[in-house]
């Protein structure tokens, strides 16, 4: 693990507010520059073959396509809402691909890329946003927990799960996903305290996409987020979240440390949400177009593509092949969504308890009888 960065440089954390006592050296781990050049980092090296590089590219393109298709489906009234990952593909693919099969991910509601790496069917994720169920995948079989809408709650679950792994002597870790806004929640701070105190094998993976809906990072923290970890007593690292290689390397290293009994790490993946918070949001109210343009230059897919072509790791035929695959995926998502059946109404009664209660069984029976009374009627 890296040592905590030294606090050499002091800058003003909030424009206009003089606070020289606050450390501000924001070191960013990067292995691939925005121009697509491979660079080395003293603490994080990545031994990666050409095949693996091509696969990462394929992942990035396919999840972006999934996301674009889902956004379009929402616009067409097929989904109630969609939380886009646009711009955060590298952070999610890098983190997801760093996981071992026996590790467990605890996502929020935006980790479609991580879901992809865990083999969760995109249509299962979509079913939640379509209002068909609350997440149709099997968290145990996939090692990908259900989405969590209440901000921050999952970080405690991940920590408890990690404590379970620890007790069982399992050489696995939990990976908790959270946003920059989530770091303000009391529960997230409690999770970090528990994780530190019990040396739990959990990694907190924070995608700092700069906003919590409309509220910019400055309203959540006056220090770079990764520096918070020091206060809880474990290492914090800031990684270029648009660099899939750096994210992969940093997350692999943190997960390995957790599995080896070295306790938690906080990873801040420094990135940007290119789209709206969700399809109900209007980002023009709170951010400038110029900011967006600036971040476009750091696009996570373009930079890997540049690297692959320039190093002759992939040729035109490969890129066309991936595009064709993305088209197929988009088709499958579209038809799968439109054809997705509505759930049986009685389903809402069926899994409330492991052991059904007499009252609820009665309510279910009354409901069925009531519905039947309309049969043939105008209802």
């Amino acid at each position, binding site marked *: 693990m890296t040592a905590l960065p030294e606090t050499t440089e002091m800058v003003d954390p909030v424009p206009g507010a003089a606070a020289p006592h606050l450390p501000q050296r924001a070191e960013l781990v990067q292995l691939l520059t925005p121009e697509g050049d491979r660079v080395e980092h003293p603490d994080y090296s990545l031994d990666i073959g050409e095949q693996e590089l091509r696969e990462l590219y394929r992942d990035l393109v396919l999840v972006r396509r999934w996301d674009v298709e889902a956004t379009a489906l929402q616009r067409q009234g097929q989904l109630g809402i969609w939380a886009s990952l646009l711009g955060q593909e590298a952070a999610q693919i890098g983190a997801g691909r760093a996981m071992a099969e026996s590790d467990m991910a605890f996502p929020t509601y935006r980790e479609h890329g991580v879901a992809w790496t865990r083999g969760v069917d995109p249509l299962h994720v979509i079913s939640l946003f379509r*209002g068909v169920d609350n997440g149709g995948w099997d968290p145990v079989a996939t090692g990908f927990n259900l989405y969590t*809408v209440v901000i921050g709650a999952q970080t405690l679950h991940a920590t408890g799960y990690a404590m379970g792994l620890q007790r069982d002597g399992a050489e696995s870790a939990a990976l908790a996903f959270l946003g920059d806004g989530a770091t303000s929640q009391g529960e997230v701070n409690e999770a970090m305290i528990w994780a530190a105190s019990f040396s739990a094998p959990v990694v907190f993976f924070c995608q700092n996409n700069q906003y919590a809906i409309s509220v910019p990072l400055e309203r959540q923290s006056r220090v770079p987020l990764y520096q918070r970890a020091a206060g809880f007593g474990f290492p914090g690292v800031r990684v270029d979240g648009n660099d899939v290689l750096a994210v992969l390397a940093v997350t692999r290293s943190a997960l390995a440390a957790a599995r080896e009994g070295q306790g938690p790490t906080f990873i801040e993946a420094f990135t940007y949400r290119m789209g709206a918070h969700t399809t109900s949001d209007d980002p023009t109210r709170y951010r400038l177009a110029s900011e967006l343009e600036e971040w476009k230059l750091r696009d996570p897919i373009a930079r890997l593509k540049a690297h692959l072509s320039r190093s002759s790791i992939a040729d035109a035929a490969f890129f066309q092949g991936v595009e064709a695959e993305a088209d197929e995926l988009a088709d499958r998502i579209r038809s799968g969504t439109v054809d997705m059946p*509505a759930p049986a109404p009685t389903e809402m009664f069926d899994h409330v308890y492991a052991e059904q209660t007499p009252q609820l069984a009665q309510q279910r029976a009354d409901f069925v009888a009531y519905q039947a009374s309309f049969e043939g009627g105008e209802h």
Partner: protein
Amino acid sequence: MGQMLTIGKALNLGLRKAMEDDAKVVLMGEDIGKLGGVFRITDGLQKDFGEARVVDTPLAEAGILGTAVGLAMRGYRPVCEIQFDGFVFPAYNQIVTQVAKIHARSKGKLPMPIVIRIPFGGGIGAVEHHSESPEAYFAHTAGLKVVAVSNPVDAYWGIQQAIAHPDPIVFLEPKRRYWEKAEVDVDATPDPLFASRVVHGGDDVTVLAYGPMVKTALQAAEAAAEEGRSLEVVDLRTVSPLDLEPVFESVRRTGRCIVVHEAPVTLGLGAEIAARVTETCFHSLEAPVLRVGGYDTPYPPSKLEEEYLPDLDRVLDAVDRAMGF
């Protein structure tokens, strides 16, 4: 005289008026500044009153309510926006163990004039935790008052009255009705905040509702009238304290009573009302007090919310049952 306003706009204007009237009023919540809140209820207020009075808070509900307690101790009147009903629970500890009890614990030395605005209820096709009806949790806690508005007039006046009130108030806004319009006369004398009101006269059955279900009850009354049945609809307006005198009066006349709410029926507000109506009007009742509400399940995925939410058919079905006794 009056202006046609949606509930959302009426709340916006009511908040604006309250801020003009009292410099101690401070709005706090997530995304309420530049964005104007996810429902735009605070639209334009930060621009006009500044960032110190319309505070975009960190993403921390316990923080919003906990700091509101301290601000209230300094004489401020915090108006806290909770973004959606399901996200009030991180603040639940502060609300029920602190906000609700400080007046009693300090023997009245520390009033807590805090308003907690919560868009509540379902019907907007949202994902989980965005459609809940948590009123019973708060009504069950002594020290809190709970109000649920159903129309633009009450929204405009109610929010101002709640802010001016010395006790903490959970102020429930029917999110699926935010866009419904009515004429609001800003020069009128408003009804008191903690008073129920008969909104449709009738003789056969008394139907009680509040918040989003008032409209459903009124629709049921119209449909029932076509079948020759006359429903009296009471908008409770206040959940705690309950204003049941007008209800008792009505039930003594109709002999039948139905309570409608979206929250699950078990231990919901209907249970309390049924008990009180039964105690007080026992000899006038021709039928047991019936409840129409949500099922005792988590709020379902949105494709099933129409089955879950009481609609006019379910109210009419209850009317049939009440009449059948």
